[in-house]
Structures are given as structure tokens and as C-alpha cells.
């Protein structure tokens, strides 16, 4: 069955190749041999890992958590790998390139959720859960409604995040190979499906670790090269950037233009990080709470270091790419004027790699960016597929009585389905700034996933009714405000004015979520609610001590 779907997909993508319309607008790039060779080496190596992992992925536990035997350091690298996505690398360096200091505001917001995850979430999550965060949320609440809601939140987050990644992938491959955007997106989608279906969490983890190492090395080289150009003087680098783009790049600017937006963005990034299903899922790959803590410590270090690098890279792009005729998109300039760069602002880091290290280093960074996208979309798809197979199929549909093999099969089919959705959405979202799309994913994670997870761990009086109604309202509010907000309502749907004026809805939707969870819980006088409150004690003891927690499997 699954094989047949693959065959269909592969044939489908070949058909898409053959029938690709040529409408004269395609900007063919020169083939970059070193880039292609490194691409192929990476794809070959990851397929090798996938093959190795496939042989070790026998049970559902192997598929979802790599058997639970990943170390804290490895998991920290892998978490950093998940987090240092194409949206982070290309999007944030592109944002720094475009707006200077505003990019740093974004980075800091992305980082500060991590300490909070460590202090409040990581340990109870590891001690209570098995495969997904819904395990924790539904620990003492009713399985069917809670799992359904948690799965809806997970899938929504995963799909939005996937869009961001796949848009980056399409543009990158377009730029490198001169392929049409749509075909590039289809190719990434197909490769991703192959990795996840066969390699499961083990392959995903190792692809993440290797890619995190390559990305940190490449970004370090770029940042050092930029700084060396200015004798390691920030003042001199910034002075040149100001010459190019004006003094505005040195201070907060238009990205967060009003207090509501600023606070709303902060809420989205901080609580959103703690509600990302693909990140939460990583905590089940380590053996115990001690390793889970170490994971966050290492991850925060790698991510923080990486954001400092992207800041330097963005400024490097301002001074070395912005006015460089080599990277100028002449066709676009003729229409809209200004200094548009080939492939749009999200390609700033890619062009910079060429400016500092020539064709060979461009090839390396492009291959790394490609690896980044593949690794992240794999992790995302695995998380989305787990929500479908573990939460919806095994727990809701089969009432916890599904056998592991059937569950794994469903997971693999879900992977294929998510891959197709990602491809279609990636095509629809081509022109959006990918960092903003991630912002939307964060809003949903912060409004639906995080409040339920957090309150289920710490608030005794939480009831099923409160969690379901409150979480649904939070999710609906986030989605609705996103649709009515400026990005979708004006930029995509073409309306003149947004119904909801703010780009970041989290402040409102998170508040709606918490308040309504509280209200519908405290007014719940049913017997079920009383039983759920009684069960809190035992849950809390397990969360705090780890007694009864899921261990690593013996291999």
C-alpha cells in the first residue's frame, strides 16, 4: 500500500517535470558544480543513515522516539537542529539584512522560551509522556476529546511550519539549479516522505545532529569571514552598514511598530516554543529527566550562539551583498526599482556565502541549507504523523487498543498525506516572508497547545471540559485573527484593510485560551471533573519524581 503511494508520488513528480509549462519568466541560474556535488553527497549520506535507521526501527517506540536512548548532548544538538531551521537561518538573516536590529529582536524572542521550557515543562513532560505531548495533556483527562484537540493543534502548527520550510527549500533550489519553484517544492516533499517513512525518529535525529554541526560550522565561517573583513571591529562593520542603509538599521524599527504588536510577538514566541509538537516530541527520545535537562542546556547554547552568528551574517549581507551588482535582480529592479537581490531577501545569507567564500563555499552553504530544510521538515512531518497515528488513530479511533505495527503503518500513511499537503501549501505561500509564517505557527502553538499542556501539569482543577472548550477557543481565536489580520486578509486575499489590525494575535488568543480554560474548569461540577481532580495528586508525584516514567527500550 505504502509502496504504491510512493510509486504514485514519484511518477507524479516526473509527470510534473514533463508537463512543466515554460512561460518565459524563468531565470535560469548557472549550474554550480560544487553545490550539486555536495547536495548529492548529503542526500547519499542521509539515505545511508535512513537505511541504517530503517533496520533498527522495528517497534512503534523506535519509530516515534528512536528507542529513547539518545543522549542529552545528542538531543541538544538535534533540538538545536530542529530550531535552526531554514526560517531561522534564511529568514532571520534576511530580516537582519532588510531591517537590521529588528532581526535581533526576533532572535531573542525565539530564544527566551527555552529557559522557561527547562524550568517548567521539560521534566514533567519527560516523566509523564510516551510519544507525544498529548500523552501528558490527556494523562488524567478524557482521552478522546483531549487527544483530538491536541492533534488538531499539532497538525495546524506542523503544517504552517512546514510551509515556511518548504518555501525556503523551493527558493533555494530554484536559485541553485534554475528549476521551477513548483518542481523544487515537489522534489523536497518527495525526499522528505522517503526519509521519514523509512527512517523514523532515529534517522531524523541523526540527520538533525549532522546538519546542526554543518550549519554551525558554516555560519561560524561566514561570520568570522565578515568580521575579518572589518578587522574584527563591530563598529567598523556597523558603520559600513549604516552607509549603505541608513542609521535605522542600528535600532528598533518598523517590525514591531506598536506596543500591542511587540507584546503579542513576545507572547507568541515565548509560549509558542513551549507548544511546538516537533520540539516537545524530542524530549521522549532521551532516557530520563536528567538527560532532558541537559538537552535544553546544550540546545539553548547552540541556538543562542547561532542567533549571534545570524545577526553578523545579516549585517555582512548588508555590506557585501546589498549593492553588489553580481547579486542584483535586474529584471525585478526594472519593474519595482530599489536594490532587489536574486531570489528575494531570504537569499541574503546564500549570496553572502558566495561573497566571502566563492563558488565552493556557496555550494557548501547551499547544501547545508538544503540539509537544514530536509531535516526540519522530516522532524515536523514525524510530529504531525504521530499526532495522526498515536493520538487520533491509536487513542481516539482504536481507544488505545491498536497494535504497534498498525499504528506505525498509519503513521507512514499520514507522512505521505502531510507531504502532499506541504507541497500544495508551499506553492500557495511562495511570496510570503517565511519568518512571518513561522510567527503564525507560534501563535497557534502558544494559544492551543501550550495552555493545555501547562495547566494539565500544574493546575489541579483543570477538567476535560475546561481544556477542550478553552483550548478550542484559543485555537479558533488564533486562526481567525490570523485570517482577519494583515498578512492573510490584505496580502493574500487582497482586501484593502485588515479586520484585525495586528500581525501577531498571540496576546489575544493566549488570553482567551487561559481565561476560558479557567472558566469552563471551575464551573464544571460533574463527577468526571471531580475524579480528574483526585487523579492530579498521583500525576504530580510522578511528574516530580519520575516514578513510573517511560524508560529507554533495551537494544
Amino acid at each position, binding site marked *: 500500500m505504502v509502496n504504491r503511494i510512493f510509486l504514485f508520488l514519484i511518477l507524479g513528480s516526473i509527470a510534473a517535470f514533463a508537463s512543466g509549462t515554460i512561460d518565459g519568466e524563468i531565470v535560469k541560474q548557472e549550474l554550480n558544480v560544487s553545490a550539486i556535488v555536495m547536495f548529492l553527497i548529503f542526500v547519499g549520506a542521509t539515505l545511508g543513515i535512513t537505511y541504517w535507521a530503517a533496520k533498527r526501527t522495528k517497534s512503534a517506540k523506535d519509530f516515534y522516539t528512536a528507542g529513547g536512548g539518545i543522549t542529552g548532548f545528542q538531543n541538544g544538538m538535534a533540538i538545536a537542529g530542529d530550531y535552526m531551521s531554514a526560517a531561522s537561518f534564511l529568514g532571520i538573516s534576511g530580516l537582519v539584512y532588510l531591517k537590521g*536590529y529588528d532581526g*535581533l*529582536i526576533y*532572535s*531573542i*524572542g525565539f*530564544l*527566551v522560551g*527555552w*529557559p*522557561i521550557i*527547562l*524550568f*517548567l515543562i521539560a*521534566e514533567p513532560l519527560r516523566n509523564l509522556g510516551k510519544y507525544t505531548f498529548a500523552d501528558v495533556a490527556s494523562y488524567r483527562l478524557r482521552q478522546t476529546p483531549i487527544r483530538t484537540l491536541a492533534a488538531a493543534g499539532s497538525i495546524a502548527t506542523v503544517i504552517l511550519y512546514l510551509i515556511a520550510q518548504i518555501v525556503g527549500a523551493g527558493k533555494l533550489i530554484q536559485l541553485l539549479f534554475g528549476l521551477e519553484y513548483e518542481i523544487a517544492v515537489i522534489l523536497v516533499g518527495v525526499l522528505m516522505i522517503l526519509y521519514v517513512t523509512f527512517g523514523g525518529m532515529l534517522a531524523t535525529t541523526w540527520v538533525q545532529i549532522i546538519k546542526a554541526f554543518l550549519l554551525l560550522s558554516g555560519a561560524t565561517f561566514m561570520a568570522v569571514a565578515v568580521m575579518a573583513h572589518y578587522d574584527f571591529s*563591530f*563598529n567598523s562593520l*556597523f*558603520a559600513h552598514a*549604516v552607509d549603505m542603509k541608513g*542609521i535605522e538599521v*542600528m*535600532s*528598533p*524599527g518598523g517590525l*514591531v511598530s*506598536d*506596543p500591542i*504588536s*511587540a*507584546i503579542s*510577538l*513576545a507572547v507568541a514566541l*515565548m509560549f509558542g516554543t513551549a507548544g511546538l509538537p516537533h520540539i516537545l516530541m524530542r524530549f521522549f527520545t532521551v532516557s530520563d*529527566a*536528567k538527560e532532558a*535537562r*541537559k538537552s*535544553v*542546556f546544550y540546545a*539553548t*547554547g547552540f541556538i*543562542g550562539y547561532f*542567533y*549571534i552568528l545570524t*545577526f553578523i551574517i545579516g549585517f555582512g549581507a548588508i555590506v557585501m551583498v546589498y549593492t553588489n551588482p553580481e547579486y542584483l535582480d535586474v529584471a525585478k529592479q526594472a519593474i519595482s526599482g530599489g536594490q532587489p537581490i536574486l531570489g528575494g531577501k531570504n537569499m541574503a545569507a546564500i549570496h553572502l556565502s558566495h561573497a566571502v567564500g566563492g563558488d565552493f563555499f556557496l555550494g557548501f552553504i547551499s547544501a547545508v541549507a538544503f540539509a537544514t530544510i530536509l531535516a526540519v521538515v522530516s522532524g515536523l512531518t514525524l510530529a504531525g504523523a504521530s499526532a495522526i497515528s498515536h493520538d487520533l488513530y491509536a487513542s481516539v479511533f482504536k481507544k488505545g487498543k491498536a497494535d504497534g505495527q498498525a499504528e506505525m503503518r498509519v503513521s507512514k500513511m499520514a507522512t505521505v498525506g502531510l507531504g502532499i499537503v506541504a507541497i500544495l501549501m508551499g506553492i500557495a505561500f511562495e511570496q510570503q516572508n517565511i519568518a512571518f509564517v513561522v510567527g503564525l505557527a507560534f501563535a497557534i502553538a502558544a494559544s492551543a497547545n501550550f495552555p493545555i499542556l501547562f495547566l494539565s501539569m500544574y493546575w489541579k482543577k483543570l477538567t476535560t471540559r475546561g481544556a477542550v472548550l478553552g483550548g478550542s477557543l484559543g485555537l479558533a481565536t488564533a486562526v481567525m485573527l490570523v485570517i482577519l489580520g494583515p498578512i492573510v486578509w490584505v496580502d493574500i486575499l487582497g482586501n484593502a484593510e485588515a479586520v484585525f489590525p495586528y500581525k501577531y494575535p498571540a496576546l489575544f488568543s493566549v488570553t482567551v485560551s487561559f481565561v476560558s480554560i479557567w472558566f469552563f474548569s471551575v464551573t464544571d461540577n460533574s463527577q468526571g471533573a471531580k475524579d480528574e481532580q483526585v487523579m492530579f*495528586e*498521583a500525576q504530580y*508525584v*510522578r511528574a*516530580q*519524581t*519520575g*516514578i*513510573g516514567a517511560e524508560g529507554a527500550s533495551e537494544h
Partner: protein
Amino acid sequence: MNKELVDKIKANPDYQKLIKTRSGYAIKLSIAMLVVYFAFILTIAFEPSALAVPLSSDGVTTIGIPIGIIIIIFAFTLTGLYTKRANSEFDDLANAVKKSVGEN
């Protein structure tokens, strides 16, 4: 976990100490992070020019840049502090609790 075991663990002084010290520490560090971050974000919201002050009269580097970098380092330092204490002191307490009820 049955009620008897839960009550036994809850009565254990090591457990009580674990809950008290760990949640106290976790809350303290969380508040530290939140205060620093929201001070930063509220400055951007209400008084962005405060971050636009140049560090020196002849340079363009603003005070906002070292502040941003320091917040990143601060976040990492907090995770280090918590992990160090939790992986020694708190885990010792948790292990003592586990031992007392025959888990290991």
C-alpha cells in the same frame, strides 16, 4: 500509582524538600527571564529610542546591540545554573524518594 503509595511519597520529607526547593528555584529563574525579556520588549514598544543611543560619540553602534547579546547570554546562563543544580541536588533528593518506596 495507587493512593497509598502517593500518600507515602507525599509524607516523605525528602519529597517535600524536593518540591519546595525545586519549584522555588524554577519559579525564581523563570521570573528572572521573564522580567529581563519583557523589560526589553516593553522598551522596544514604548521607548525604542532608549535602545538607539550610540555607545560612543564617534561610532554608530547603539546600546541596543550589546543589550541584545547580553540577553542571549543571560538565557543560556540561566539554563546552565538550573541544569547544574537539578542534576545534582534535586536528582539526589528524587533518588532518595525513589529508594524509600523501592524504586530505583
